[in-house]
């Protein structure tokens, strides 16, 4: 997906607080600074259910740096680090 300009209400999931709920707008793998290539990161996110339109909620946070986060994605819970969650643009 291309890196579209965010409207004010769009933000990366990686910056959201615990308790945040929202809907995935698009994926921007080039924003994450992940060790994975953009294509690989995007593929893995999709395989774990992070697709446009999915409802997400941050359920839990780790102790150090409030990282990683446990995210409810529709009907499943996925643990990711905030670094990778930067690729998930939500509103």
């Amino acid at each position, binding site marked *: 997906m291309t890196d579209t300009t965010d409207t004010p209400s769009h933000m990366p999931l990686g910056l959201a607080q615990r308790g945040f709920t929202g809907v995935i707008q698009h994926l921007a793998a080039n924003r994450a600074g992940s060790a*994975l290539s953009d294509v690989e990161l995007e593929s*893995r996110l999709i395989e774990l259910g992070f697709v446009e339109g999915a409802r997400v909620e941050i359920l*839990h946070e780790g102790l150090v740096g409030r990282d*990683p986060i446990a995210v409810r994605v529709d009907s*499943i*819970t*996925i*643990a990711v680090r905030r670094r990778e969650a930067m690729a998930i643009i939500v509103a």
Partner: protein
Amino acid sequence: MELPLLHLALVGTPNSGKTSLFNALTGSRQKVANYPGVTVERKEGFFVTPVGRQVSVVDLPGTYSLRGRSPDEEITRDFVLGKATGETVPDLVLCVADSTNLRLTIRLLLELKRTGRPMILVLNMFDIANRRGITVDVERLAKELGVPVVTSIAVRKGGTADLLALTDEISAKLAAGPQKNSWRALSVSELRATQREADRIIADCVSLPASPDTWTARIDAIVLHPVGGLIVLALILFVMFQAVFAWAQPLMELLNSGFDALGELVHNTLPAGLLQSFLQNGVISGVGSVIVFLPQIIIIFLFILLLEDFGYMARAAFLMDRIMGGAGLHGRAFIPLLSSFACAIPGIMATRVIDNKRDRLTTILIAPLMTCSARIPVYTLIISAFIPARDVWGFINLQGLVMFGLYATGIVSALAVSFLIKFFMLRDFAPAPFMLELPDYKMPRLKSIAIGVYTRAKMFLHRAGTTIFSMMVLIWFLASFPQPPAGATEPAIDFSLAAIIGKALEPLLAPVGFNWQIAVALIPGMAAREVAVAALGTVYAIEGGKEAAEQIGQVLATKWSLATALSMLAWYIFAPQCASTLAVIRRETGSWTWMGVTFTYMLVLAYAASFVTYNVAVALGAG
């Protein structure tokens, strides 16, 4: 008419209940091996269908797609495509789904369909889905997917009856000849399209209740709490180690006295001589000293499998991710390192769950520093012989404190080594992502756990019966030949090959306070750490007569200085004394270099630690 053997393959995402279905279908009729050239565990089982068809079923590694981004996932892909070397193309693929969580499996199934293999979708854990108010229109789902769908409850007796019937029905009309395979790696946009398609089908066929599983949410509120969660984790680990040491004790004593009695029986039945000595000192006491650990191995694997089945292990990785990240370790390294407290071999094999090469290598290199159960007999022996059982500060047992110190030193050194590796050797690798499904909690399935523990216990006994047995025979031989000349007054072992080797090594080991008897014991100890105890027994028993063997500890207390004993403890924290571990490292890393690196760094650490310990102790007057 004899029906040909039917080949089934189980494919599914991690946590889909694939393994419990596999266990339900096959019971204990399982064969565990490795795929050729890789150390991916190959689990095959056998069963007979209602119409009497013989079936072989392979439990393939869990995967979210056929892209094959790790050795495990490549095996699954190649196996389904019929490209795995030396494997039969499966006649029928069973795609296993957790009925409470269909999204990811349906997407995988849509991808699998392109391979053209005959397939069944198995909606596993269907009872749990029903209880949660999830309803599935099975007929419609089958029609939309174009694949037969069957429900199953792997954990219930008869819960797989429908699946067996459908397998018979389909295999009776399986078309001969190759099917058309149109699978190729999906691009990102195709991947997204299949997920959309899967979501559409699920929306049409499945109705989900408004609220998710409340039990999982309630447990996670405590277990994943940033602070509370770590306390719970510490408590679980405490109970686990308590169990390994305290609960196993009576059983271990029972086994010990059993082997003693057996040795006694041999001693009394056979005439004194070589055969008697071989059976009693070489075979029975040698193999017995290893089998004594069976209760501990069973308990530690029982805990690991229970926690895994319950769904806790993924949570532990979540909690530890950043904490271990400080030392350059991945959250997923937690489980392999935890297993390494039982034995580094399953621990190193469990690093397969880490898909980043650097993280995996670091974990493999430090896994042997975790105090494995094979070190326990050596620690116990030396501590009980040299450390007084008195209380310090009124309530802490000094022996227990030393034991704790040995464990802590192992852990701290492992973290330090990991940090150094990150800092100096592999620093150009960027940190790998941590992405893990946190499955809903499930009641552990006792049958599955029992089969898992049984398989591991069997592997351990097999090792005791082969490697360790042959090493014991070798050490007995070295310690018994050549026999002393007639009329010799010195102990017989002084004339043996063992003494010659030990005395040759003595100058090298003298700076760390080891005598030649220790050097002799360390040689078979290279095969397996715990053998050193039996070897010390053999060395001193043959030297001092039968009474000595029964009280190795007391003998050591009279023959070693405290400094030597402490030096030996320090040596055992680090020394790379396990041929099997080194062999596994060679296999898992696919390189002699990394095996050599592990061996060398551990040996250097061991020598340095012993040298410092010995000299400090001597300087303090313990020499």
